[in-house]
């Protein structure tokens, strides 16, 4: 992609900067402007800290090990919630997707539940599960189960019927057909669901950790608010952003390795 951009660029007028640097130019300029306006006193450091302050806060939190502790707690919550949510979504989608009776039993119920904004369940979850880890993990699990269910269910149902018909003449057992043809066919849809699920997972975590938490990135941001540490709040935001990007990257890597048969990934 960068090669294409570069060729297009040289075609118009030769800019000596490499493409990657040119893409970063505007954000970098904004950063410099930001630093300058804080330094010159145009913006109060109470509302917005300077980039250098954020950087030093980041360094402080890293060196003291505080950031790592909170990060690990948050990661553990997201992982646990995702594991439960993705498993539940997958199981439900398999039941509903692979059998008509399963669909009758589950689909209407899940379609109703999915219209509910799951974050609205926070008060109920606190009453049910207390203020420990359970409501936070449950929130992530509930939020992630639906995108997985919806996408995988649709994926199973939209596997090319003609291919399935042709394969059905080849003498496979039903389970072989499911394992070798239907599920791999639904994999792209599952990965799309997984991407959505990861986004929802972070969102649920942010909400969950700002209520009655005593650790985690969200807790870090909430306590920083009490001490007017805007720099720490922004560090927390940046950490969330990086985690989101990393999660997306992981799904991309999985796609790249499992969907090699797709023309977009084939290099011949």
């Amino acid at each position: 992609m960068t090669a294409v951009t570069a060729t297009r660029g040289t075609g118009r007028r030769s800019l000596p900067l490499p493409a990657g640097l040119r893409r970063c130019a505007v954000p970098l300029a904004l950063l410099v402007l930001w630093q300058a306006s804080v330094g010159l006193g145009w913006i109060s450091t109470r509302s917005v800290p300077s980039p250098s302050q954020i950087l030093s806060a980041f360094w402080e939190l890293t060196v003291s090990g505080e950031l790592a502790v909170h990060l690990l707690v948050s990661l553990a919550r997201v992982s646990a919630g995702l594991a439960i949510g993705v498993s539940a979504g997958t199981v439900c989608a398999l039941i509903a997707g692979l059998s008509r009776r399963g669909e009758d039993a589950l689909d209407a119920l899940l379609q109703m539940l999915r219209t509910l904004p799951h974050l609205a369940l926070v008060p109920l979850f606190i009453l049910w599960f207390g203020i420990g880890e359970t409501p936070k993990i449950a929130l992530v699990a509930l939020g992630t189960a639906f995108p997985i269910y919806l996408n995988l269910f649709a994926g199973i149902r939209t596997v090319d019927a003609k291919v399935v018909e042709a394969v059905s003449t080849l003498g496979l057992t039903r389970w072989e057909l499911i394992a070798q043809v239907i599920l791999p066919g639904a994999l792209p849809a599952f990965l799309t669901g997984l991407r959505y699920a990861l986004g929802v997972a972070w969102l649920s975590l942010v909400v969950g950790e700002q209520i009655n938490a005593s650790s985690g990135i969200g807790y870090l941001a909430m306590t920083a608010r009490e001490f007017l540490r805007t720099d720490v709040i922004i560090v927390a935001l940046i950490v969330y952003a990086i985690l989101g990007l990393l999660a997306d990257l992981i799904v991309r890597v999985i796609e790249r390795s499992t969907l090699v048969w797709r023309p977009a990934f084939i290099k011949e």
Partner: protein
Amino acid sequence: MSHALPRISTPSQSDTRPVVSVRGLVRNFGAVTVLDGLSLDLQPGSFTALLGRSGCGKSTLLRTLARLDPAPEGAVQLPDERAVVFQEPRLVPWMRVLRNVTLGLRHADAEARGLAALAEVGLSHRAHAWPLTLSGGEAQRAALARALVREPRLLLLDEPFAALDALTRLRMQALVETLWHAHAPAVLLVTHDVDEALLLADRAVMMANGRIAADIPIPLTRPRRHGDPGFIALRSRLLAELGVDEEHLAAREPQPVETRAAGANPAPGGFALPAGAAAAPSL
């Protein structure tokens, strides 16, 4: 039933019982009767073309013989060794070509068999390719290999050449003829194309209104040529059976590629590209 003489021919050919036997087949889609008491026998190793207008029930018959449709009314006897090639290749896109070919095979040497089948259709070099990188003709040859590797006694071909370009179609037709000679399955070829039926089949079965309307032997010698008098005579007869006015047709439709080539060729006797010539395609 005592055979004093040793069997010389292959078992499938020495057995005179039909490999497919259909009696009184009835199939309804709601109020519409698609198959109306149809009966048909196919002999082992025979090549039968099934012709008919759209909606005459020929695809339904093929699907019944492929056991793709629920069991209908009537008696149907089929061999267990069946294979189908459809109009589209219908390969599984996330399995490499060889895996597609060997899918469902229980033999220990499935891979070797798959490679042999791919070699026969001239696709060895694409054994490890992804199906979506194949051309239309290559994909259809892979589908043919997938059918062939099962050593079918009944090979069902559902307009397998319809989606191919004219030149690829000629090569595929020749390939099918070669493979049929080599393996001698009973072939049932569903087609719209009278010329295709005359090039390949020994028998043309015409369907109309859910029944066999005509059963016409094609006793032409192989390789067959479009310009042969016998070919032309049978062509007229088949078209007449299909209710096509040939003169009207000639005025409206472009000639098939191979006949055009013959017209351009000054050689006496109308040197049309014979089926035999296409039987050695540069694969």
